[in-house]
């Protein structure tokens, strides 16, 4: 097999790959940490990164033509907003299930990250 000069990844594709892998890489341990009640000192940093990153950032990369930096900023804004709104709705309808909702958010983030990776195409 010969490797030619044209076999190079486009920067946008590398960014997609990175965000997709990162999304998966933090969502899975976060889910495991929450499900098994791992000590907060271990779960806190991973879950915070996972909730800031997903599902907004991979979603922005999937549905828009925004460069990585812009996707990250818009995605973080979207994630923080969704967390606030979902928690607000739970309070208003008197259903307080933080573990399930955060878990669902992480699963959603994982699925969108997988979609992002599925779209990965090395030019």
């Amino acid at each position, binding site marked *: 097999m010969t490797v030619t000069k044209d076999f190079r990844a486009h920067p946008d594709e590398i960014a997609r790959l990175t965000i997709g892998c990162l999304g998966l890489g933090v969502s899975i341990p976060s889910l495991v940490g929450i499900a098994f009640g791992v000590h907060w000192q271990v779960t806190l940093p991973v879950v915070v990164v996972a909730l800031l990153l997903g599902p907004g950032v991979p979603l922005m990369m999937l549905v828009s*033509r925004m460069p990585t930096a812009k996707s990250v900023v818009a995605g973080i804004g979207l994630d923080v907003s969704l967390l*606030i709104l979902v928690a607000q709705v739970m*309070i208003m309808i008197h259903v307080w299930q933080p573990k399930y909702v955060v878990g669902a958010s992480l699963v959603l983030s994982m699925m969108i990250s997988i979609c992002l990776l599925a779209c990965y195409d090395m030019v």
Partner: protein
Amino acid sequence: MIHLKAVTPPGTHKSRRRGLLRFRAVAHTLLPVAALYLGFLAMKHAPIPAIGPYGLIQALPPLYYLAVGLACASFLLTWSTARPSLLRLSVDLLTLVVLLQSPPAIIEPAARFATAWLHAGFTDYVARTGHVLPDLDARFSWPGFFAGLGMVERAIGLPSTTLLLKWWPVAINLLYLPPVYLLARAILGTPRRAALAVWLFPLANWVGQDYFSPQSVAFLLYLTFIWFVVEQFGAQRAGLLPRLRPAPGGRERAERPPALMPPALGLGVLTVLGLAMIVSHQITPLFAGLAVMLLGIFGRTRLKTFGVLVLLLTAGWICYEANAFWAGHSSMIFGSFGDIGANVTNDLSERLRGSPQHYQVLDVRLVLSCFIWGLAALGFLAGYRRKLDVRTPAILMITPFLVLSGGGYGGEAGLRVYLFSLAGALPLIAMLVPAARFAWSAVASGLVMALLIPAFVLARWGNELSEMTRPDEITAVKTLYRVAPAGTTLISITPQVSWRFTDINKYLYEPSNLDEFAFVKVGAIVQIADTNPQGAYVLITTSQILYGEQAYGLPGNWGTRVERAMTASGRFALVYSNPDAQIYKFR
């Protein structure tokens, strides 16, 4: 006689230049590392007793300022190169924010600022119960922040959000930087000017609204919201009002990039951001709605009615969910509507009082704010001459002032106006930088930074003597919660007390309003304590007494006098004491 002439071997210039570049690269890599190391060293050895009436500036050694200076030098080195690296700029910015925001977290043993402890108590209550108490505190009428954080707290099993208080300002300030940069980039077009704007942000942001609070997160959402409006829905066409100049175009005018996503999707993102602001904080959505409305009127965005929608939704939330608040405070909201002069005077007069040193700190804050606004005004003129887009940043800078016409907001509106005006002021300042001759710009920027560094430390941490929380005070509050039966009244003599971080609805707290504090007469305390048949306790801490001296200008021994009078009245018995706190039981 033979004269020997030194001959430069071919290639020497090139190798010298290469060596210089290599030295520059190595120095550049080491500068932020050295700045961080020296800064941490300086903060680690800053003595707490040295914190005086001027705050942390008295405790921080010269090494600290050298560290911040190195961070600025590193930035200027990056900034003045032909192609500034975004990665290097990011490292420099991270260094600057950590150095500017972390001194209290490193020097002080407990997390600072009483209100942050209170917000931790609110969050923990929501995390534990899933309910809010709008009748207990007006902030529960905008519970988005407490609910969001409470949800995460409960999901990961965090024992208390008080654990997050120390490093929250550093984290949230780091999160502000990307939207500030992208907003400046969208306005200015060039990354170099945008880099200067974002670099000035941590130095100019002395306001201190970045503690663990709803407004800290709401400001992040505001920055993202405004950037998204300018970036995704930006326009350069006639608005509802006539143009400032006859025709668009010009040498330096940045071309608007095409929309980044389908408009419907963009509107969806904006709606989510807007709703999160509306349920989290009282006045942030007003700033956002007004800004978008004015941008639409002046033709800087294609969103002509979205700003009005945000304002209507905000009003809807106040009517529906926050009715417990406005039913009792309608005169506060609407009473001073439109009276800009009175509102400015009230805001300033509520802030401008206290000890002579406190006055000087306030003077520095005013001068620093006027300096930033003055530079922005000059930047407006420079940008206008250079045919840059001055209208967008000018609207973003001026919009917050309109909020002053809407009400006093308890003396904090002035602070918010300055903070929100930075989103427009800093890009305007960056317009002072010409397209060429960056060396001179770097020198000028360096001088501005040299002025801003000490001014920031004094303005931001100038009240640290009373705003810091002493570990013994927390011990006393925990003791109070242990000895006081549920339902009793807990009284403090000034608002600067870090309590209510647990069991927020177990006791009655008095006074409940910031303006009712500073009891010098024991009669007032007895009057409140007498109203509760279940009993009352009075907590007196060092921070309270120092706050009375600093913020109200009370004499140095006022705390001792109050304590003596309480003991002499025969109605109070000392039940607990440590070097920084005393608890008296009312009988």
